[in-house]
């Protein structure tokens, strides 16, 4: 029954997003990527394969993350603000079901955006006669897991903050993930001994979003696929952190007066 309710909620989110033409932005961006790649191809820069692949996967990762955050961060606040929440919560579903259903919906929207962009980028890369390798499939899979984690983070933050603040915080944490980790390392080196355990705990807790980005491997030629156990570990990592984020969202939302 729960799966059925989650599916219905997610379906509603996707349908609304598609009709609201949110995904048109993605299609336009994809078209621009194709045009840019086509222009480079026209000027005979076929030797720039690595550069073009790197640029493409960066743009792909960035825009799909933006779609994921902007979609997920407004899920719960919009329901409350527009009062569409009332007829939903009057049904025999729990607030936890609502959070899960809405998160699944935003994950699906971000996946659709990502896959549409990836397909358009793939077509663009064909103009460079780029050979498709198995690692590209791993890249898609890992990025989709990363987007699920990103959506969970944005939903959790939006339960505690305004949608704008939640989205901004999500951007900082996702795009600044590697920078924050590096800064933490630097801080650890120079920190007083009594502070070091605190920094260690922070490093252990802080989710590393860059783990899901195999863009660097895809861009560089002759990289072998990562072992299957790594992909499985990433799935476990994503599941653990997503569950934690959604649990935090539920803790805030479960008793919130609406």
């Amino acid at each position: 029954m729960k799966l059925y309710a989650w599916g219905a909620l997610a379906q509603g989110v996707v349908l609304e997003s598609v009709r609201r033409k949110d995904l048109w932005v993605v299609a336009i961006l994809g078209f621009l990527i194709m045009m840019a790649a086509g222009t480079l191809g026209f000027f005979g820069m076929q030797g720039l394969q690595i550069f073009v692949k790197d640029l493409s996967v960066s743009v792909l990762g960035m825009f799909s993350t933006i779609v994921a955050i902007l979609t997920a961060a407004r899920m719960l606040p919009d329901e409350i603000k527009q009062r569409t929440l009332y007829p939903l919560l009057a049904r025999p579903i729990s607030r936890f079901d609502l959070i899960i259903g809405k998160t699944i919906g935003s994950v699906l929207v971000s996946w659709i955006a990502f896959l549409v962009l990836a397909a358009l980028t793939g077509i663009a890369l064909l103009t460079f006669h780029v050979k498709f390798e198995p690692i590209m499939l791993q890249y898609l899979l890992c990025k989709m897991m990363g987007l699920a984690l990103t959506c969970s983070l944005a939903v959790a933050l939006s339960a505690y903050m305004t949608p704008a603040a939640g989205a901004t915080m999500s951007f900082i944490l996702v795009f600044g993930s590697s920078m924050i980790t590096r800064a933490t390392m630097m801080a650890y080196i120079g920190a007083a001994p009594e502070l070091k355990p605190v920094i260690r705990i922070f490093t252990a807790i802080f989710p590393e979003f860059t783990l899901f980005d195999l863009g660097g491997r895809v861009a560089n030629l002759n990289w072998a696929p990562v072992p299957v156990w790594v992909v499985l570990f990433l799935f476990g990592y994503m599941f653990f952190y997503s569950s934690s984020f959604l649990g935090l969202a539920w803790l805030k939302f479960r008793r919130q007066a609406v």
Partner: protein
Amino acid sequence: MEYPESRTSKAAPLGEVAIRVDHLAVQYRSKVRSVEAVRDLSFEVREGEVVGFLGPNGAGKSSTIKALIGFLSPAAGTCQIFGLKAGTLEAKATIGYLPEVATYYPFLTPLETLKLYGKLQCLKGPSLDREAKELLSLVGLEQAIRKQNRALSKGMLQRVGIAQSLLGNPRLLILDEVTSGLDPVGRRQLRQILKDRQKKGATLFFSSHELSEVEGICDRILLIDKGSLIDERVVLDLKDALRKYSLRFTGDAPMFGLAQQWSESDGNWIAEFADKERLLEGIDRVTSAGGKVLDVVSQEGSLEDYFVETIGRAA
């Protein structure tokens, strides 16, 4: 004017208790202050009853309804739906709810909206599709089932809301500001729909500012102000209590202490009485004094006057 005491819930049909509110208190807390929207509120609604929940703006009607659905947790007291704790999945499964403000997903159609809500109630497949279409047709939206909600008027959205509240044939309908945005035709349709549901055994509990609707549909009313119940009436009794009688007669009959007021017009007296007993006594006095009764008129009282006076007295 004081209205005589009337029968209250003792007159209600002896069905199962559909709604039990016991010493309910609802508070809204912010960092700066705490506002008590409902205080020590207790009442019952029996299965099969149609009960209107009345009160001025900010009286605590919507807060009480929100506590009944489980949208907010009571600061004190309890709410039960058919003996189940309000807000639990089992309790919610028995309710059809129309929110005060009808807002539905703007990019979905009414049909998709109903199907979404139906799926959340475990309704599935062709039967859900059929029921959704039937309900939309019942509320007069058969021409608009494939238009997106954003293209619908406020009244049409209210009809979508009414249709969604009827999904799954709920045992209890809780309707907040049910007539909001409806034109006279829509109100008449709604009255018929609600009466049909009652005939099928549903319990209706609704808030409204439209006193004529309340009068036409309800068995009983609960009057709330500043978060507390200030009056509870059986509608028929209240109508009786509000009815006035006027007597036109000739002669000099004494009406002191009996008629509310009397006046002379064209050589005839007109006396007004608050109830039948006093009217009959007035007729006795006229005939005893050798006068002649020319006319007796019964006038319906105004529920609006009762509402305004009762709220005013409680203030």
